[in-house]
């Protein structure tokens, strides 16, 4: 086979129409579906994660009611059990708390993925310790002082806050709506996020001069450290405040949210939607709904479908659903993924009028990017841990890893830095990981693939050595791992191979190429820069 024949696909299809894409002018293919992929990939940096913390430990068993174990459910949960005729059926095995029922339409539309039995080995039943474990993604016996999202952001912005904001990162790297910054957003040395309580209060931020008072004297010790810290917050606030004010003015919500003060979660999500709609480039938001520590008064004895937990589930369902509607109306639904966390579930057997601290619970991922459906099975109410708590099905760090990989396209090194060890991913999202499963590389061991020049502007050479002759296929992928084009396929001989590739039609950014051989698959990364 001649190389000329081998080179089909992308290069020859280029006809070079100019297109403005993400601010960069590039030549492109007219009406090419491929280009749409390329355009989508430019949006990869626009992906947003909204983390909803349910503080106090949500009672998963009354959120998702195991219809396959109702007799046990009614026997051990008398104080809080939802009457059978009030349970809203999600599918044959699982029912919803009636106040959580708005989630059914989200589920039916494929915009909700439920993961059952999420926990970690050896659950610590202290709220604070367990919350820290979830925030830091640590082992049960490991003490970390940085949060998983803080580390994630810190990896991409190692010098933050020095030099921030800048042209490429004009906005806060992460935002927490609420009072104090949680450990989630704590980076290796600095808090990586900024806290916004509400937009009107934010607009009162200090304007004009920063009160540092002239040339800044270097001070040392504990006081000096704090002075530096406060100066940083002052400086960051100043820099970001104008931008956030502009963005908030521009952003408009399109869905009808509950009146302010009626649903504490919806209030926060409304701000998030407004900021995204206004064009804020922040990728991580953290919001909080507290009060799930329902030792008592979880449900009102005269009507067990009401009470504290019912109200909280109502806030959660209404908040998530309205937010999702808003994103859809705003045309942002493909850019935003939501995920709930809670420090632990609650014990299957009830105490007095509530439930004590437990272990595993369900996690919810919502938004257009999710695959939908239920992962894992209903927790068993009879096959329990020795202390009477639910058994774990999935480690929460598997979900974190999956989200970072499948949503934010974190590569292996990035994942290792954030998660510190490797966790098996779950198929949560319709977007896929750039990371190949570890074993896919097994058969191709010893093979090396590279391209030069890299980064490239136009022509680059992809070079690899085949240990044996055979059928191969070389494909090009966007940063999300989606195949854009076949560079070539067919039979090739043993030994070094060189394939010239014309990247001049691609927008700037990162791409991957993959070589599938009979011995396995290898891939490399190509950066297009002009």
């Amino acid at each position, binding site marked *: 086979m001649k190389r000329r024949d081998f080179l089909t696909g992308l290069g020859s299809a280029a006809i070079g129409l100019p297109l403005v894409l993400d601010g960069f002018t590039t030549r492109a293919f007219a009406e090419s579906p491929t280009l749409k992929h390329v355009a989508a990939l430019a949006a990869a940096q626009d992906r947003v994660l909204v983390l909803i913390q349910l503080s106090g430990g949500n009672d998963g068993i009354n959120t998702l009611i195991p219809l396959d174990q109702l007799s046990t459910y009614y026997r051990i949960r008398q104080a809080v059990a939802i009457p059978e005729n009030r349970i809203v059926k999600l599918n044959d095995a699982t029912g919803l708390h009636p106040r959580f029922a708005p989630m059914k339409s989200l589920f039916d539309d494929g915009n909700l993925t439920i993961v059952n039995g999420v926990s970690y080995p050896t659950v610590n039943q202290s709220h604070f310790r367990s919350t820290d474990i979830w925030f830091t993604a640590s082992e049960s016996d490991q003490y970390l002082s940085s949060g998983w999202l803080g580390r994630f952001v810190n990896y991409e912005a190692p010098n933050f806050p020095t030099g921030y904001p800048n042209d490429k990162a004009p906005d806060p790297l992460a935002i927490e709506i609420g009072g104090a910054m949680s450990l989630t957003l704590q980076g290796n040395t600095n808090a990586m996020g900024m806290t916004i309580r509400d937009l009107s209060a934010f607009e009162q931020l*200090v304007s004009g*001069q920063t009160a540092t008072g002239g040339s800044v004297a270097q001070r040392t010790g*504990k006081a000096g450290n704090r002075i530096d810290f406060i100066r940083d917050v002052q400086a960051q606030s100043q820099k970001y405040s104008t931008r956030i004010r502009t963005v908030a003015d521009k952003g408009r919500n399109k869905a009808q949210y509950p009146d302010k003060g009626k649903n504490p979660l919806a209030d926060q999500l409304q701000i998030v939607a407004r900021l995204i709609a206004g064009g804020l480039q922040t990728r991580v938001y953290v919001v909080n709904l507290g009060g799930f520590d329902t*030792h008592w008064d979880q449900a009102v004895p005269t009507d067990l479908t009401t009470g504290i937990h019912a109200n909280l589930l109502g806030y959660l369902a209404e908040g998530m659903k309205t937010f999702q509607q808003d994103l859809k109306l705003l045309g942002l639904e493909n850019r935003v993924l939501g995920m709930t966390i809670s420090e632990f579930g609650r014990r299957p057997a009830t*105490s007095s009028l509530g439930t004590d601290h437990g272990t595993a619970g369900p996690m919810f991922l919502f938004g257009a990017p999710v695959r939908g459906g239920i992962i894992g099975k209903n927790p068993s109410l009879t096959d329990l841990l020795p202390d009477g708590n639910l058994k774990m099905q999935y480690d929460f760090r598997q979900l974190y890893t999956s989200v970072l990989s499948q949503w934010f396209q974190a590569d292996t090194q990035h994942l290792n830095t954030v998660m510190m060890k490797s966790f098996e991913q779950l198929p949560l999202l319709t977007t896929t990981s750039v990371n190949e499963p570890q074993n896919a590389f097994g058969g191709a061991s010893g093979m090396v693939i590279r391209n030069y020049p890299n980064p490239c502007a136009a022509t680059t050479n992809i070079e690899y050595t085949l240990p044996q002759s055979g059928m191969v296929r070389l494909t090009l992928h966007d940063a999300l791992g989606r195949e854009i084009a076949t560079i070539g396929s067919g039979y090739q001989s043993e030994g070094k191979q060189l394939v010239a590739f014309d990247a001049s039609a691609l927008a700037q950014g990162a791409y991957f190429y993959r070589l599938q051989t009979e011995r396995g698959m290898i891939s490399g990364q190509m950066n297009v820069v002009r």
Partner: protein
Amino acid sequence: MALMDAYTGTLDEQRARHLLRRATFAPTTDNIKTFTGRSATTAITILLSATPAPSAPIDPTTNEQWHNKPYSSEKDATYNEYLKSWWTGLMFNDGTSLREKMTLFWHNLLVSSYPAVQDARYLYRQNALLRRFAFGNVRTLLKEITIDPAMLRYLNGNTNTKSAINENYGRELQELFTIGKGAEVSAGNYTNYTEQDVRAAARVLTGWADVAENATSRFIPENHVTEDKQFSAAYQNTVIRGRSGADGAQETDELLDMIFRQPETARFFCRKLYVWFVGTEIDATIEREVIGELANTFRGSNWEIKPVLELLFKSQHFFDAANMGAMVKNPIDLVVSTAQYFSKYFTPTIPSQVDDLAGYFNVMKWLWQSADAQEMGILNHPNVAGWKAYYQTPQFDRLWINAATLASRNDFTDKLFAGFTVATKQGMTRFAVNSIAFTKDVCANPANGDDLVDKLSIDLTGVALTQAQKLYLMDEVLAPGFFNARGAWDMNWSFYVSDPNNAAKRQAVQSRIDNVLKFVLQMPETHLV
């Protein structure tokens, strides 16, 4: 030199300022002067002297106390506001006493919040208990708080019965109130106690209930687990023998005695005191030399806290320059101490409790609401662990500062000069600091701009300003835009002095002094304590 050796010299101005800023809500220029030149022993004796218990809060609309009346669903939320204003007033008027900072310390350790308790009478009672034990016996306080009606509600001790064990209080008593969690050495074993101990403690504590009629508590023997309670090796395998009838209540005493027998319990309280009063970073040396010494004294005094406080505040370590300004000032301290600092200079005068209780309460309400906006609400903790700044590593006290709270802090201090408006018996009244009156008190020669900015700032900042910063205050804040700033200021001040009733001349200097004070109050150095 051991860290806990007593500081034997007299207090210079810097040490007097440091002690008053940390231990009281009134580090005013007058008080700093009074304490300067005294021995540490004398100063601490003043801080720790007994003060009469305040009388209970009054409803200004009826002039009657309400804590001893039946619960009123209609008025309770208002009573809660009165309670907070009353309490804020006690802090505001605490002078050179340590009492209210200790009361707040106990509130942050032995948390109860209004949203959970939902009865202001209960919270008044708890608040009075914390104040009574401000310098008291800690083991007795813990016994009292365990059966305090507000606490019984807050942590569900009132629902903990033999037929439905509720572990909430049994857990938090150990994790957050007394011994603390050590490393988790195996599943459910937190070194200092285990999950078994949580369950056993919960069983010991069965039977307590609050009594809504008179905001008290009682023990109901029928609800008590009468079997023996077996504790783990963390508590030397102690068995608390099950008792029936009214004797069941004694088990609660035995439980606390068991917990207080553990050396770790003494260290736990001493660490909490250290973090509250000295600094949030406890390294190995401090753990060994400071916490260890304090804990020895604590155990030796049979759990009296007063000798521990004396030891701490007299120590060379407390007065170490490295600890001065080493913490971010918490919002309640910020609002109460700053308002107190300028209290003599408000125009009009802040109403007195006797003349206009409602007006006085409204001013106090403005203070606690300002602290709420800065994320430190009294009787409104985010959760049972208290304010995050006192336990959340690695940020600790830095957590008080973020973009939102910094804006709220600045908003508060700006309003002291721009004015804040509340209802008094005169109608809606705007209060603002008369900064010229203040200036004349703290500065002998205000015409000298350099001296003026020094005197305006020296007692406000937790760390002394540098010469460069003072020059900036003079050149860029007091008299910006002048070729000869000093001359311009001197001239304007003399214009005012020669014609003090001329509003324009007065305004020219007052607005510039206001600018300096507002600016100083926003400087990072002022956010430190």
